[in-house]
């Protein structure tokens, strides 16, 4: 029964002047699809996004400043916490930078072990991307599958270094522990297990009409814009540039392995997803090759406990799952770095979000943001 109330607005009639105005929506900081604590300030015109301002800094822990108060060995555990989804790669970048600074030769076996761990971690990180991306778009099943596979990688890590998230496995001049006896066979088993699983994800998602509707042609990032915003990693390769530090500026033992760099064509959300799916297969290939050719020998160069690198500075970068991760170290010859600057891929990739999201609907920003695969602690550091 309709009740006539005085608060009820008059019904709209055709001759009334309908003025529209922009309004601001806060997405986050506590929003499940911002993958952490990121606040997106969206200026909306109806349902269309006119402007996005990412408000970051909620997770700032001043890790760069902490580095000035820790020795080179001690800072290793803080690199774990910069990017907790791919700690091995963060460890690796720090090791490469310090070794470059001090000119330390790393044993061959240690380099191979580092590559194996970094690539396994890349697969794990992309699985987390796949899981969260799928569940953001409403596909719950791949989320469970991806975490099931990640569990096996994490078990391999725990078997080797004892931790499941913050590995602290690599050391300046090598790695902390040699792999246990059954690691090689278990990892080989895992690699052969992974290929059909990736096919499975593709069967569920890649050509699914609902998934295509949510991703194909959404959030275009053309190549010049991507380069101008110094986007790196899968978003850059999704836009069509074949740029990968592992190939173009090989570090560790990457020049010895044969792998392809997948690229996309249009630079849309679907391309970025596809690049990561393909990278998982390539990473598994690298792991298999590295296990085949794993040399015998020492796992750690002699580095004193009171490690004092010479005065000077060094810059080293690696290809982390999210893009280029780089450390710039200035040393004054003491046991602690004078200054450390960390370049993380998430921070730079996030800067391209306003360009990518402009003009799309509010539902699409979840897909676009998810396809960048941002890790908020890495953005804020």
């Amino acid at each position, binding site marked *: 029964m309709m009740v006539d109330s005085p608060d009820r607005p008059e019904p709209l009639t055709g001759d009334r002047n309908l003025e529209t105005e922009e309004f601001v929506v806060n997405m986050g900081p506590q929003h499940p699809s911002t993958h952490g604590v990121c606040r997106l300030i969206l200026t909306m015109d109806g349902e269309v996004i006119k402007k996005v301002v990412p408000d970051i800094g909620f997770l700032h822990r001043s890790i760069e400043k902490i580095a000035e108060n820790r020795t080179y060995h*001690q800072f290793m555990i803080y690199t774990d916490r910069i990017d907790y989804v791919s700690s091995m790669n963060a460890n690796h970048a720090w090791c490469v930078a310090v070794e470059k600074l001090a000119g330390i030769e790393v044993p061959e076996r240690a380099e191979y072990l580092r590559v194996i761990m970094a690539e396994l971690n890349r697969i794990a990180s992309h699985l987390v991307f796949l899981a969260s991306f799928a569940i953001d778009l409403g596909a719950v099943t791949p989320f469970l599958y991806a975490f099931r596979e990640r569990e096996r990688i994490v078990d391999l890590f725990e*078997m080797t270094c004892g931790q499941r998230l*913050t590995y*602290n496995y690599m050391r300046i001049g090598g790695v902390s522990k040699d792999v246990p006896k059954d690691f090689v066979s278990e990892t080989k088993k895992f690699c052969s297990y992974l290929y059909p699983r990736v096919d499975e994800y593709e069967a569920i998602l890649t*050509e699914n009409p609902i998934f295509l509707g949510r991703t194909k042609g959404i959030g275009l990032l053309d190549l010049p814009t991507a380069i101008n915003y110094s986007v790196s990693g899968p978003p850059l390769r999704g836009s069509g540039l074949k740029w990968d530090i592992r190939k173009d500026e090989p570090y560790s033992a990457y020049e010895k392995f044969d792998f392809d760099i997948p690229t996309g064509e249009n630079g849309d959300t679907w391309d970025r997803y596809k690049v990561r799916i393909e990278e998982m297969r390539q990473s598994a290939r690298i792991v298999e090759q590295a296990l085949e050719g794993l040399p015998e020998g020492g796992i750690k160069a002699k580095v004193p406990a009171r490690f004092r690198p010479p005065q000077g500075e060094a810059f080293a970068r690696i290809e982390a799952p999210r893009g280029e991760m780089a450390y710039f170290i200035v040393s004054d010859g*003491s046991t602690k770095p004078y200054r450390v600057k960390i370049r993380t891929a998430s921070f730079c990739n996030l800067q391209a979000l306003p360009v990518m999201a402009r003009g799309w609907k509010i539902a699409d920003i979840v897909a676009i943001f998810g396809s960048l695969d941002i890790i908020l602690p890495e953005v804020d550091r």
Partner: protein
Amino acid sequence: MRAARQVWSGVYNLVLGLVTVFKHLGHKAITLQYPDERMPMFERSRGVVVLLSDPETGKLNCTACMVCARICPVYAIDLERSEEPDPETKKRYPVKFEIDNTTCAFCGLCEEACNFDAIKLTGKYEFSVYDQKTLLYDRDFLQELGRDVPYEKKKKPLPKAKAAPKADPTSPKPEEPASPKPEESPEESPGEDKPEA
């Protein structure tokens, strides 16, 4: 024609996805019902830190050489050294050994640095408590925790190490037990920053 192909592709891929999902129906669950079932922990698992004792004498292996306190990146270890009165052995032991589990990062650097198999990270992981203060583990509690932890002696046995552990270049220089701190130059000793940190 193009529309028909799109419809066909859409239907095919939806069915393909569903078939993939249904293939998993008969599989056994990979999860465990946690409090009743537990995952076996790996040998190298890094959980709660314990102090190890000599199985024969029942005394702590720790000689309070301060290496662990110095390497700890989060300054979670606090220890004080004392000496046994016996003039023959003059064995050093920690009179106070505290680990703050609220700050411990379980990185394992202390275990790696230790030359006497005195400190170890174990696979124990259930240490939730209601009161934060109880997470500050003292020496006796850490020793009790480590009683049942098996370990292999990685370095030379203790009696020999007692006489000349100082020859090892990685271990710290011999220090006067009364005043261990002034020998260290201030910028090298992270352990000294502890009160401020």
